């Protein structure tokens, strides 16, 4: 078994197709996870009785169980409860539930790090709690935790490889399919691995730019 460039040259459209699907799932999942995370963190910070306990348990549970098990659960076990989802929807839902918990934890950390004075000032203006949260607390908290949010988004990109287990043909799934046909794991898996690494670092560079820009805007707005 050797590395066969001919395979790369012949099959690259399939690899790229898989990569495109991976990026699609990544983009959707980052948005949904982010929204869920902000929502959960806000609700937790409102300290509504019972609800915030439930949400804290949700965050703990989904952060402390493997994503793979969550995917299996959503795809195989939810139908028993009458919730049947197609593989792509089940995949996005599992990643959202899992990464939403991670995003929530990050945003919650940001909210907790804000000085109490911010709240008091806003409350002194007699703004309702919810408006304080959405207009003042969340935007500031998000700015504080941008690096962590960016780091977590990179993890979402890698997470999507697990969607191959429910027959989604993203990069990992399609690589397995190509390998089943060609039986040259050295070529197929190393090619896929190289693609993941390259795209991961390209995305990282973009996010770094984004982060820098956000921070610049942030400092102009808040100084």
């Amino acid at each position: 078994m050797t590395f066969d460039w001919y395979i790369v040259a012949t099959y690259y459209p399939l690899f790229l197709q898989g990569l495109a699907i991976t990026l699609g799932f990544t983009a959707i999942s980052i948005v949904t996870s982010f929204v869920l995370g902000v929502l959960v963190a806000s609700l937790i910070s409102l300290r509504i009785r019972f609800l915030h306990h439930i949400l804290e348990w949700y965050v703990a549970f989904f952060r402390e169980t493997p994503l793979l098990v969550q995917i299996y659960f959503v795809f195989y076990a939810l139908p028993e409860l009458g919730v049947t989802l197609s593989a792509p929807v089940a995949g996005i839902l599992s990643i959202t539930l899992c990464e939403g918990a991670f995003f929530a934890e990050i945003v919650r950390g940001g909210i907790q790090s804000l000085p109490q004075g911010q709240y008091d000032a806003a409350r002194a203006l007699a703004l309702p709690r919810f408006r304080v949260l959405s207009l003042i607390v969340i935007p500031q908290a998000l700015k504080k935790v941008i690096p962590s949010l960016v780091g977590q988004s990179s993890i979402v990109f890698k997470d999507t490889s697990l969607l191959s287990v429910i027959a989604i043909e993203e990069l990992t799934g399609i690589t397995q399919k190509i390998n089943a046909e060609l039986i040259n794991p050295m070529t197929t898996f190393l090619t896929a691995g190289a693609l993941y690494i390259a795209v991961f670092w390209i995305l990282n560079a973009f996010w770094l730019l984004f982060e820098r820009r956000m921070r610049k805007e942030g400092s102009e707005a808040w100084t």
Partner: protein
Amino acid sequence: MMQKMKIWVAVIATLLLVVTAVSTSSAQDTLQKIKSSGKLDVAVYASVKPLSFVDPQTGDITGFAPDLIRLYAEKLGVKVELHNYDWSGLFPALLTGKVDVVAANVNTTIPRTVTLGLTDPWLFTGGSIAVRAGSPYHTLADLNKEGVVIAAIRGSSYIPALKRDCPKTTIKEYTAIADLVQALLTKRIEALVMDQLAVLSGIEGHNKQVYVIPDRYVPVTYSFAVSPNDYALQNSLNTFFQMIKLNGEYKALYKKWLGHDWNPKMVGY
């Protein structure tokens, strides 16, 4: 700066060299290797009751195919180690030398003999089509309509057969039997096609919700598989199958796992 660049170039060049230099080779005859190491590595697909499955009481792999390969190993005088893979992992594991034999319900097909060393068949059966109870579809021809979704296991020989017989139908591929059954019960698909035994075990407990179309779809036989050039091992397994069919051991295992007597006439011997 130049110095740093040089170090980087050297590092990356070394890494590329290492990557291209790692390659595996196997020159030794597999059967001799098995005999001398005293261990037979076997890939199984433990997802089809009663052919091969995990016993829920003990967590051990059991069934018709594991019993056959255990009997073979016993006669060869070696230990056997079973590795449980997904279907899509079986042949990559075999062809990259992770295991010596795939002891599973590998459909015997002639195109497969190009890439795999198939043994003589060890079971004669066929595919079954299952639909939901009360479904308007009763034959394969009924299912050949635009918008109808039929599913089968990825890589199974039913996929090309379905593409040939139901050109209008959408054909989906799943990786596990449980997925297929769930998909049928939850109306993601209209029909599933699997090996007869897999259908019977797969719908266990759902008998009222599922209707199995009585006609056998595509008669099939199952083989074990070895790497394409392992002629000695392939011959050895063939001899084993012939022997146990004549001496009654096959008959006993057949009865044990399928619950009825083996009828050699049925397979046209």
